[in-house]
Structures are given as C-alpha cells and as structure tokens.
C-alpha cells in the first residue's frame, strides 16, 4: 500500500496541501501521514529561565499542536474512511519531513508553497524549495 506524507503548518496554504494530499490518497487508495513540525533548533540560544522551563514548554507545544492543529483536521478525514496517522515533532521543517518520510517509507511528500513570510522565503528558500532539493521521494508542491 502506498503512503503519502503531508506537511501542514496551520496556514491556509498548508490546508490546501492537505486537501490535495487527501484527494491524491483517496484516488490512489494510499495511507496518509499528516505532520506538523514545531520549528526548533538544537543550536539556538536561550536564557537560563527558558532552559529551566523548556521541558514543560515542549509538552505544551506538542499538546497545542495535537489539539489545535492536527486533531481538528484528522477527525473529519478519519470519519471519511481514510487511514491517517498524525505526527507532531520539533525540529527543522525540511529535515524533519525528510526524516519522517524515510521512517514511514512514504512514496510522496505534499507541502504548501508558502508558509514563511515572503521575504524569508525569497532569501532562504521556503520549506518547499528545501524539500525539492533534499527529498528522497517525489515532492508535490501546492500553491
């Protein structure tokens, strides 16, 4: 059975990517893995106070991602009879999605084109561009 991975970020564009992924998965009879990446770097700098509270914050961030972003979207789709797994993870968006695609042996990654601010996307390239450059599987970019 095929498996598609879709990255969402809570934005409208991310939701369009999700709709496309759902349509593709239904057509192909594939499973769907929905991932929300919480941007995080192991090399960022923080105050001692933030470090002391980090573990709690992490749990809160994961909980918020699950309850506010993932679950509302998954609930409706599951009712529609689609095999769905949802994942919330900390990390660099591109690297985390690539890693997850490898772990789950996904056949396709679907993402929205924009998400970051336009300026940031122009200078550094967005998640979509990063995926196109480094993904081991085909990438479907949704405008």
């Amino acid at each position, binding site marked *: 059975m095929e498996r598609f991975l879709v990255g969402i970020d809570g934005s409208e564009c991310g939701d369009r990517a999700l709709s496309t992924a759902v349509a593709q998965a239904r057509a192909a009879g594939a499973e769907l893995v929905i991932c929300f990446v919480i941007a995080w770097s*192991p*090399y960022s700098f923080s105050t*001692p106070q933030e470090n002391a509270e980090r*573990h709690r914050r992490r749990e809160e961030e994961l909980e918020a991602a699950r309850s506010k972003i993932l679950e509302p979207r998954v609930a409706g789709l599951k009712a529609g009879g689609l095999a769905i797994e949802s994942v919330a993870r900390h990390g660099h968006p591109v690297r985390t999605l690539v890693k997850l695609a490898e772990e789950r042996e996904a056949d396709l990654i679907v993402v929205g084109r924009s998400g970051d601010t336009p300026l940031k996307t122009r200078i550094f390239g967005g998640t979509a561009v990063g995926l196109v450059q480094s993904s081991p599987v085909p990438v479907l970019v949704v405008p």
Partner: protein
Amino acid sequence: MSFRISVPACLTIPVPGAAFADQGLDGTIDRLVTPLSDALSALIFYEIPLPLVDQGLPFIVLWLVVAALFFTVYFGFINLRAMKHSFRLLRGDYTPPDAAGEVTHFQALATALSGTVGLGNIAGVALAVSLGGPGATFWMILAGLLGMSTKFVECTLGVKYRNEYADGTVSGGPMYYLSKGIASEYPNLAVLGKGLAIVFAVFCIGGALGGTMFQTNQAFSQLLNVTGGGASVLQGYGWLFGVVVALLVGMVIIGGIRSIARVTEKLVPVMGVTYVLAGLLIIGTHIEQLPAAFGAIVTGAFQPEGVYGGFVGVLIMGLRRAAFSNEAGIGSAAIAHSAVRTDKPVTEGLVALYEPFIDTVVVCTITALVIIITGSIVPSGDVEGVALTSRAFASVFDWFPLVLLVAVLLFAFSTVISWSYYGLKAFTYLLGEGRDRELAFKGSVLVATVLGSSINLFSVMNFADAMVLAMSLPNLVGVYLLAPVVKREFVAYWRDYKAGRLQTYR
C-alpha cells in the same frame, strides 16, 4: 567572572567612570556597608605572604587553583582526554532524536557561557598583561585548563542532584547538591550540607545583586569613555542609562518578553564570534610575529622582567585573572547547566569542560596575543583594562572601539540576565518559590541596575566582588566531599564509552 575588571585589595584600579558626583546617599550607604565589606574582603582576599616578593598570594586564588589541580589529578586529566568525546556530545551525536525540543547540551553550554564571557575576557586579560607582562598569559591558560576539571565536577553534580518538578520545570545548582548530595552520601553530615547550602545561597544573592551593579557601572563607564570621557554628553546621565537597562532587563525577567532575550541571544554569540575573528585576523596579518609572541609568553612566564614583579608576581597575576574570568569553582555554572535534558549527569559535566576552555583558553589567549603582537603594552605605564584591549584592536581596525562598546554592553546585559536567574534560584531556595517573592527579588535586581550606574559605591562593588568569590567556599567544600560520587559515575560511564556501549545517533 565577567564582571571583574577592578582588582580588589592590593591593586585598586581607578574605575574609569569615576565621573559620578559624590552625593550624600553614596556616603551614607558606603559607611553602612564598609565594615561588612571590609571583613569579608579581608578573608577572601587575604594575601598569604610569600618570601622574596612584595606581593602575596590571595587566599581565594590559592583555594580555586588548588581545587582545580586536585580535580585534574583525581579525574586523571579529564580536561584533556575527554575533549574529543565531549565535542561529540555537544554536537548531539549521543542525543536520541525523540529528545528534539528539549534543552540540548549545546544550549546549556551556550547559556552558561553567556553568563561568563564578558568584561573578564576583554578587560581582565589586559589587566593581567599590563601588570604581569606577556608571561601572565601562560599561567592564565594553564589555570584555564585546570579549571575545566572543576567545572566538570560541579556541573555533573548540578545535574545529578537537581530538583525535577511535576510541572516539568527543573531547579539545580550548588544549593541542591550541597544539601541533598551531602545528606545522601554522608548522613551524619546532613546538617553541614544544609548549612553550606544556605551560606552559598546567601553569597549568591549578594553576588547577583552586587554583580548587577558592577555590570551596569562598568558598561556605563565604557559608554562614557567612548563618547568622549569627561566631556561626554552623557556625563551625569548614569541614572538614565540605568533606567533604560533596568527597563530592558525588566521586560525580559519580569515581563517575559522573549523577543528582547531572543535578540540578545543572537547578538551575544555574534559579538563573541566577531571579537574572536577580528583577533584572529590581526594575528593573521602579523603572522610573522606569532612565534615571537609565543616566545614572549613562555619566556615571560619563567624569566619575567623585574618590572612585572618577578616570577611569582607574574604567576599570581595569571592565575588570578583566570580564576576570576571563568568562574570555575564558584558554582554559578552548575545552576545554568542543570537544565539540560539527560539521564546521564556525567555528560553535562563533560560538555562543561568547554566553558573554561572557550572562555579562558581561547578568548583570553586571543586577546593577549593581539595585545602582545600589536605592541600595545607600555611597560611601567599605567595599569589598564578595557582601554588597552581597545587600543590594541584599534591599531589595526580603527572602528573597533565601537564594536567593543557594543560587545561590552551586550555582555553586561546577558550577564545581568544570567546572574539575576542565579540569584533568583538562591533566593527561592532560601524562602520558597512563589510569585510575590520572585517578583520582590526581580524588583531588587532592577533597583541594583539603576543604582549601579547612577552612583559609585566602591564598598558595595568590593562587597559584590568578595561575595561572588566567597560562593566558592561552601561550594568547593561540597564538591570535594561529593567528588567520589562523580568519580563512580564517571568511571562507569567511561567504561561504557570505551566499550562502545553508548548508543550514537549520527
């Protein structure tokens, strides 16, 4: 530590910003604090007389250096042999991927470093070199290398005996290992442990408040110097500077405004890297003088010119600046490092090895080399701090004093943030946690910020100086007592490492 630029006791350096008018308030506070300050200073800076030299060996320097030497030998030169492994820990090679989002070894180290890197690296080195000649650098590097071992022990203990609360937050540091650690290892010394913890916490609160005053005072002095010294338009506006800094600090520590902290977080390492790169560039353009500079450092260390106080004088100057710069043995780093997420306390101790290494061995050496290579030392001239470093860098990059000013301001800011947290932890350890109490302490940090730059209280500053160093008295007693615990854990960990039983993820 970062806020030592004055040399206490025998060598009082005129603080450059002695531009503050003598006010009635200053005098009153001075009179109140002086007896206390003098008593503590007399103990901490007691100079053990040495034969043949007119300069004695300050007790506290001996206390810190002996500990560093002891732990280096006791742990079989861990400071040298574990560096490769600790670099891999730092890089995350041993961190499981499912720990993403937790405090990493790198972040714990970076946070601890932003509390120590600062004026000590810029001004302290200049002091050492102008007082002790190039040779002082040699002893500084040596003391930095030894200090790594002390950091290893105290940071391992900090993680091992921290409190992890149900809500997912952690509290750690000497208060906890002194009380919990000693009680569990030596049940009949439990009272001693508790006592040491309380004494430590008291010193830590004093050091945090005094250190805050010192930071803003020195930062403002630097600002005055760069903007024209006595003729500066900012002359007399120290209070305004203090209020601005207090507002910014308050927004971070009380308001929890993360954006300011985030900007500082990004700028502090950028300044650090800029400083090191500029230093390397200057060394690079004078590369032909590098062997001679190293030669001067080594020969100066063993056969110094009489003008620098002879062999012992140079030795003391180097050891002293190193001890003051990297805080090894003070216990402050153990508070910062204890937030890391790991089930093996030893790993954080190993990572902490890099703190004195970066602070003292790398940054201080670069400063010293730049000063020596550019020939900026004026023998038998006036004793200089930041001004000497500034002149040395400016001889190649004339815009550098401005960068240095920004660096000093940022380092001061981040050090105040770090120390206000250390002080807060000590405060809540003594009085219990609670919103109102925490607010009261944070408020007093802000008051100290304003006071520090608006009035010149030498007695209070000296007191702060002594307080911070005094933290090493209870701390090191406990660290000696608990060293066998760390040894047990380290031996088991190192055996696993050598046998390849530690799982890597990269």
